[in-house]
């Protein structure tokens, strides 16, 4: 059974209907959850940055080794060195926040630039960029990161630069697709024929008005990806290095004790990763539906 109903009275300008009524309920839930996660991440980052933590995350308490969750003062328990897991989780965000933003910034700026070159200019620029993106795409990302780590040092910033760079083709092709779509509708030509300078057309009309939601969505997905990448690398021992906590190396260190029934040192960061990445993805998905199309007729 599907139900449809109309308000009585004149159907005016639909700006008077609040947007949450027009949207799909699922999208609203996705976006709210995503925004909650983003807020938690930002708050955690600030708490960590100003050391407003229940405990010092580096404080080793051999007397409290492996205390289970709920131990007085240690909400989520302690790890194999007796360090407070909750505090370490909060500080762990430090490992992702700025590096993640860096990765996102690289992919968005690089991707928009290449996308605009390929889509707006076309011709040789397009061919060159297509070859470049194919090249990047055909190279396994993990191998690339391992090479960089081996050549320099296992630093999260190096890793994130590579993550950002390897995402450039994705953003570039999306931006290029959007431009080709606008071109096909003669939108770009109409702007040129009005006499607008190329700078205005590209920055204002293409990137700001027509690509902004696409870029926001890519940014949320990029953040999630940065966390995931660090986690995988931690497993290989190339992520953030002890004693600095990251969720990845916490899971990895805690995993050794999982089989002994001491699940919490690895489970807490694993769940944090799960909920956070899910948050970023759902945010991206929901925003995509809210901002782009699916707007209903």
């Amino acid at each position, binding site marked *: *059974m*599907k*139900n*449809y*109903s*109309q*308000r*009585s009275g*004149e*159907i005016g300008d*639909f700006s008077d*209907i609040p947007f949450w*009524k*027009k949207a*799909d309920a699922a999208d609203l839930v996705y976006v709210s959850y995503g925004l909650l996660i983003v807020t938690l991440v930002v708050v955690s980052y600030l708490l960590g940055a100003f050391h407003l933590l229940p405990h010092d995350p580096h404080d080793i308490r051999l007397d409290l080794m492996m205390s289970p969750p709920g131990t007085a003062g240690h909400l989520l328990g302690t790890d194999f060195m007796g360090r407070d897991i909750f505090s370490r989780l909060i500080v762990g965000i430090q490992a992702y926040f700025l590096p993640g933003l860096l990765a996102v910034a690289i992919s968005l700026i690089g991707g928009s630039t290449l996308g605009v070159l390929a889509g707006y200019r076309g011709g040789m620029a397009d061919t060159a960029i297509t070859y470049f993106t194919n090249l990047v795409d055909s190279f396994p990302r993990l191998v690339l990161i391992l090479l960089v780590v081996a050549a320099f040092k296992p630093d999260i910033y190096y890793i994130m630069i590579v993550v950002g760079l390897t995402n450039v083709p994705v953003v570039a092709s999306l931006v290029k697709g959007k431009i080709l779509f606008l071109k096909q509708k003669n939108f770009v030509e109409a702007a040129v024929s009005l006499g607008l300078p190329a700078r205005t057309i590209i920055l204002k009309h293409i990137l700001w008005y027509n690509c902004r939601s696409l870029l926001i969505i890519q940014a949320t997905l990029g953040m999630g990806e940065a966390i995931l990448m660090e986690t995988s690398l931690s497993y290989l021992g190339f992520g953030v290095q002890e004693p600095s906590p990251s969720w990845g190396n916490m899971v990895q260190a805690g995993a050794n004790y999982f089989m002994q029934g001491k699940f919490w040192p690895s489970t807490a960061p694993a769940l944090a990763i799960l909920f956070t990445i899910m948050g970023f993805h759902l945010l991206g998905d929901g925003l995509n539906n809210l901002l782009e199309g699916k*707007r*209903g*007729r």
Partner: protein
Amino acid sequence: MKNAPLLKIEDLRTYFYSRSKQAFIRSVDGVNLEIRRGETLGVVGESGSGKSITALSVLGLISGGPGVIAGKILFGSNGEQKDLLDGLEGYVKIGREQNRIMQVSKDVLGWERRSDEVMRTIRGGEIAMIFQNPKASLNPFTPVGKQITEAIRLHTKITDAQEAAERAIYWLKRVKIDSPALRFDNYPFGLSGGMCQRAMIAMALACEPALLIADEPTTGLDATIQSKIVDLLAELKSELGTTTMLISHDISVISRLSDSVVVMYGGTVVEYGPVRDILTASISSKHPYTSALLASIPGEEHVRDKVALQAIEGDVLDTINIPAGCRFYARCNRVTPKIRENCERREPDLREIAPGHRARCWLYFD
């Protein structure tokens, strides 16, 4: 049953729903029409007036909710007349406020299952349809000849592949495709727009349908090709006598091919009658919309004297905000003080104003 019309639509309503406006799009809002056996019924009206949605409703091909919600579609072939919407009322609940539908609950799955059961034998076989965009409605990955052959085997008594293929070539020749045997193996992308439209026509006719629905068969084609397709349709009409519902917004096409005409505006029929009564230039006995439409088309005299055209002021009706009174009121230039109040407040019925000629306008009754 001899004189019963082949197709009779009674008070058909097909709605869509706009989530962003929280309102119904009343695409087809009480359509009544009938097609007699052997005649060609022209359906004219501007875009969005519900022509295609009426046709798709007949075929049970509406996708999107709530879709068809009320009405009767009586179709009589093989001697018996049956309602294609029979037994479907049970799946829909309608809530009204001041005689206007404001709420619809529909068991979409139940409806579709039931409708498919009824339509399976009818679609393609008894009723065939030609779509506006021939390139898009032919399968791009199958040669046209093969598509026609399959349609023949599916919908006619001919099941033998060889025989069906010969029949397909016969129909390709019939629609004047040159070297049909060669074209048989062409994929749609190898054919021009006009050629694709001919292939579509061949495919539809090859199933020997009782009713052919042609939705804008010439729109989007070049003038010279349009006139060829119209020629072809005229010729097929006189030779085969297939009952046809011809949808077009091009009045010249309609007036050349049809026997009767239905004029649609904002989801309803505003005028119905024989083509010579409706599409000839005398203003006196016509619905104001029809006469304004005819007057707005550039004719010899405009061109000769270089005078301005008589435009219909205002805008195409928004089928979300259908007014309470006459749907054409906002643009009508023939409202008299005497009927003004009626025009504004009450929707006129579609009533007979002369034998066989019906109009929906207060001018003709009080």
